[in-house]
Each structure stands twice: as structure tokens, then as C-alpha cells.
């Protein structure tokens, strides 16, 4: 029972990690919260669904397609809703409000196009094979989710720390001005970061759509909230924090359901936010910030 729940929690949590990574990448580089990230996730799920249902492509091709489409959506978001704000000095609330606008726009656009009812991937998208490992029963979907999430996370880590572009992203995250001085085209790096974050969100959408077998326009808001909870839990702009924080939230939710309070599953994320703010506001893995003088 315990081990089974742990595997379920890890699977759920790895999708939270993917979503939270998107938040944290943008937070790290732009120092803003992209409130539309949840809707990018929803968009990815619909793209994946469309590719499988109408173009009859293989589920893995659909995932790649969802990543590309979401990355494009991210680029659009950066160019229309974020870049115009950077040109003039406005309050920190402006990008927050602007991306809230994008999120509500996208959600209602999806409602107009797809309707409020939830849709499912066809039964054959990933066969219902189950493996029995000792006391644990693990489905193929779970294996795919775990494999892809962890795979992407490690590739991302490696890419950020070892490649030239990855280093440019990290320099930009330290300070946009310094990066500019060093000859880094920061606008390009920001565009790349938002695209990358959105691609991660998009594939997470397909993975979650597969695992709960439901894709609906409102899935973005609740997932967005989970991602934000993980962002605070792990520490803002902290990549390791986002990865581990997601797993912690996933496991916490699964155990909350397993041991009784199933209807309060969605309250766990909020509980974690408040708890962290009280006891460790910089997040589990974050460093305490200095002043801003």
C-alpha cells in the first residue's frame, strides 16, 4: 500500500515538477511570474489530443508536437504580453496582470472552441499494460510519465550547466544588465527561456491528460496553482527546488487522498503555501535574499 502510493505520488509529482520548472525558469530569468503558464499547459494537452485524435499520429509524436506548439505559444506570449512592458519601467504588478489577462483569454478561447466538457485520449494511445513489481503495480502510462519527466529534467540541468546557451541563460538570470554588457543578446535569451518553459508546460499537459484521461479548458487553473505552490515550496527561481518540490507536493496529495481526506486534495497545495510562508519564506531550497539597495 505505502510503496504503491509512493509510486503514484512520484508520478503525479513529476508532472508538477515539469510545470513548476516552467515557472521557475521564467522567474529566474525575468523575475516575473507567468500567470498564463497553466493555460500553456492546457493548450499543450489540447494540441496533443488533436494530433492523436485527428491526425492519428503516434502518442510520442503528439508529445513532440505539443512541445513545439506550446513553445510557439510561449514566444507569442513573450512578444505580445511581456516585451512591450519591458520597454518602459512599470510596476512589478504589470507583468503579473498582463499574464493574468493572457490566461483568462486563453481559457475562454478554449471554452469557445472545445466546449466545457472534458475529452479523453483514445483507448489505444498508450496500451493499458501493467507491470507487477513485488507489491507495486505500475502502468505503462506511469512509466512513460516518470521516464519523460525525469529524462527532461536531467537533460535540462545538464544543458543549463554545460552548454554555451545554457550558461548564457544563467548569466541573464543573474542580471540582465551584466548579460547585456557581456554581449549576450538578452532579448533572444528571454525568448528562448519562455519558449523552453512553455514547451515543458505543453508536454506536461499531454502527460497529465494521458494519466487522468481527461483534457478540459479549466485544467490550466488548478495545475497552474499547483505549479505556483511548488515554486514557493522549492524557492523562487531554484531549479532543484522546483524538481524536488513537485515530487513532495505530488506525494503529499496522494497520501492525503489515500488516508482519508480525498475531497480536500486540492487544498494541500494551498496549505503548503501558507505553511512555507510562515516557517521558511525563502522556500526549502532557496537562499535568503538581501535588501534591494
Amino acid at each position, binding site marked *: 500500500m505505502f510503496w504503491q502510493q509512493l509510486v503514484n505520488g512520484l508520478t503525479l509529482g513529476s508532472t508538477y515538477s515539469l510545470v513548476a520548472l516552467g515557472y521557475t525558469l521564467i522567474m529566474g530569468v525575468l523575475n516575473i511570474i507567468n500567470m498564463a503558464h497553466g493555460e500553456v499547459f492546457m493548450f499543450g494537452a489540447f494540441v496533443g489530443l488533436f494530433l492523436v485524435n485527428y491526425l492519428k499520429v503516434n502518442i510520442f509524436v503528439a508529445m513532440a508536437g505539443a512541445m513545439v506548439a506550446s513553445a510557439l505559444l510561449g514566444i507569442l506570449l513573450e512578444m*505580445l504580453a511581456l516585451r512591450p512592458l519591458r520597454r518602459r519601467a512599470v510596476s*512589478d504588478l504589470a507583468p503579473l496582470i498582463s499574464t493574468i*489577462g493572457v490566461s483568462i483569454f486563453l481559457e*475562454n478561447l478554449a471554452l*469557445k472552441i472545445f466546449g466545457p466538457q472534458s475529452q479523453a485520449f483514445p483507448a489505444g494511445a498508450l496500451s493499458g499494460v501493467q507491470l507487477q513489481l513485488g507489491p507495486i503495480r505500475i502502468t505503462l502510462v506511469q512509466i512513460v510519465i516518470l521516464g519523460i519527466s525525469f529524462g527532461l529534467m536531467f537533460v535540462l540541468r545538464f544543458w543549463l550547466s554545460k552548454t554555451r546557451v545554457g550558461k548564457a541563460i544563467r548569466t541573464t538570470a543573474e542580471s540582465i544588465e551584466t548579460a547585456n554588457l557581456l554581449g549576450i543578446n538578452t532579448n533572444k535569451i528571454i525568448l528562448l527561456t519562455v519558449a523552453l518553459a512553455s514547451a515543458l508546460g505543453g508536454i506536461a499537459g499531454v502527460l497529465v491528460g494521458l494519466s487522468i484521461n481527461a483534457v478540459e479548458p479549466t485544467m490550466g487553473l*488548478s495545475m497552474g496553482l499547483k505549479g505556483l505552490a511548488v515554486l*514557493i515550496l522549492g524557492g523562487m527561481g531554484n531549479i532543484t527546488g522546483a524538481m524536488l518540490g513537485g515530487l513532495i507536493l505530488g506525494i503529499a496529495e496522494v497520501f492525503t487522498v489515500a488516508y482519508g481526506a480525498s475531497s480536500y486534495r486540492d487544498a494541500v497545495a*494551498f496549505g503548503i503555501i501558507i505553511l512555507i510562508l510562515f516557517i521558511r519564506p525563502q522556500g526549502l531550497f532557496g537562499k535568503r535574499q538581501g535588501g534591494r539597495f
Partner: protein
Amino acid sequence: MDIILNQYYLQIVIFVLVNAILGVSIYMTLSTGQLSLGNAGFMSIGAYTCAILTVKAGFPVYLAVPIGGAAASFISLIIGYPALRLTGIYLAIATLGFGEVVRVIILNLKITNGALGISGIPTLGTKISKMLSSFGLSRFGGLTAQQTSNLLVLVVLIFILAFLVFFCTRLNRSRVGRAFASIKADESAAEAMGINTTYYKLLAFALGAFIAGMAGGLSAHLTFFIGPKDFAYHRTVEILSFAVLGGSDLIIGPIVGALLLTMLPELLRSASEYRLMIYGALMVIMMAFRPQGLISEETVRFWKRKLGRRIKQ
């Protein structure tokens, strides 16, 4: 006269007024530069508290509405204290999460009647008419009972809104208002000048929650029915867009924003279908081109100068 007393128009004006009160609630929190995304949540706490008190415990409305506000305000302190010691982003996230969790709790509690919501809430109009008829006043010359009660509701709402405007203007020109404005302008400089920024941010947040809670209580008594869906995230975004469109420098901003955005779907039938999409697009456009909203301090200064010159000529 008939046009003014038209049931339909009265209803719209009532919605405008309730939305204007909600606009003031978000203005209050924004006056320290903090963004609360929990106003729909506070509204629902006010609405449910108020409805439960009047329907199940038989409280009079004029007591239940402020109690609803106080309940929302109390809860706001619990969320606000940890979040407001930090920078603004934390409050936005915590209140967003809070709005969702309130919805989950309301769905699961027995006293709130879950997804079914609470119905049979006595409307404000009936209450007032009853009160008046007990004084022997049932109708004013030529008006139907329905018209009378609607008019009275209107008067009550206008009175509440006017009081809020009075409250905010007085506050702005006082020690507390200056503290709010200084925090909005530069939080760390304000703290270095001896202002307990956490306290004042919390105060503005709790006042905003109180107003939202009261607006919730009022709207419960205007619509006969409340359910968890009435207070979803979209309601918060709607309230926020009042302040974004009208501007949040001056109290008149969100009130004008509420007026314009509430009238929009009435004037433009096709707009009602795309209402939320319009709100979303509006937010992006405003932030890019006019982040201070339609009415800012500069706008007022500009028109004052312009009109002043005309008077001199």
C-alpha cells in the same frame, strides 16, 4: 419616468453599484501596491456567512452584512500576515490559492450546501419593503411595490458606495493614507522612513477583504441564490479588470471601470458572449499602453489645468 423605473434598467444599475463596491475593495489593497487575487474568495466568505446568518439563524440583514465583512477580514489576516511580510508576488500567489481553497471547502461543507448552494435568501428589497410597511408606508405615489423596493435597494447601495468614497478620500488625506501611498511608491524607502510596512499592507488588505465580504453579503441578498460557482477565479479577474481599466491611483478609477465593464455587455449584446476574453485582452492591452488605467492623477491634473484656463479666459 417609466424609463427610469424600468425593472431591467434598475437591475443593471444595481449590478453596476455592487461591482463598483467590489472595485473599491481591490483599490483598497492596491493602494499599498499589493495585488490581491482573493477578492472573489472574500466575497464568498461574506456571502455565505451573511446568507447562513439570515436564512438559518434569522439575523437581520443590516447586522449580517457587516458580520460577513468582518469574517472575510478576519480570514484575510491569517493569509495576509505570512504573505505580506514578503514582496507583492507572494500575496498574489497566496490569495490565488486561497480563492481556490475556499471554493473546495464550500463545495464540501454541509452548512454551505455543497454544489447546490443556498437558495431562498430573502432579497434586500423585500426586507426593506417589509420594514417600511411595518411603519405603515407601503408604496409611494403611483409606484408598484416592486418598483419601490428596487428604488430603496438602489438608495441603500448608493449610500454604501458614497460612504466608501468618503472613507477612502478621508483616509488618503490622513497619516494612514500617506503611509499607504509611500509604500506603493517605494516600499523599502517607506520602511526606512519609520513606517511599519507589514502592518499597513495588512491593514489595507484586511480593509479590502472587509469591503469584498460586505459586497458578497449584499449580492447574496440581491440574487436570491448563491452557489460556489458565483465566486470562482473569474470573478476575481473581473474585479481586477475594473481597476486595470479605470486605474487604481484614484478611487474614481475602479468605479468608472466597474461602470464601463458592467454596461458593456448590456450595450453590446455580442460582447456578453466574449466577456471574459475581452477582459483578458483588455488587461494585456492596458498594461502595454496605459498601465496607470484610464484615470490617473496626471489625467486629473491635466483636465484641471485645461478647465482652469478656460474659466480664466
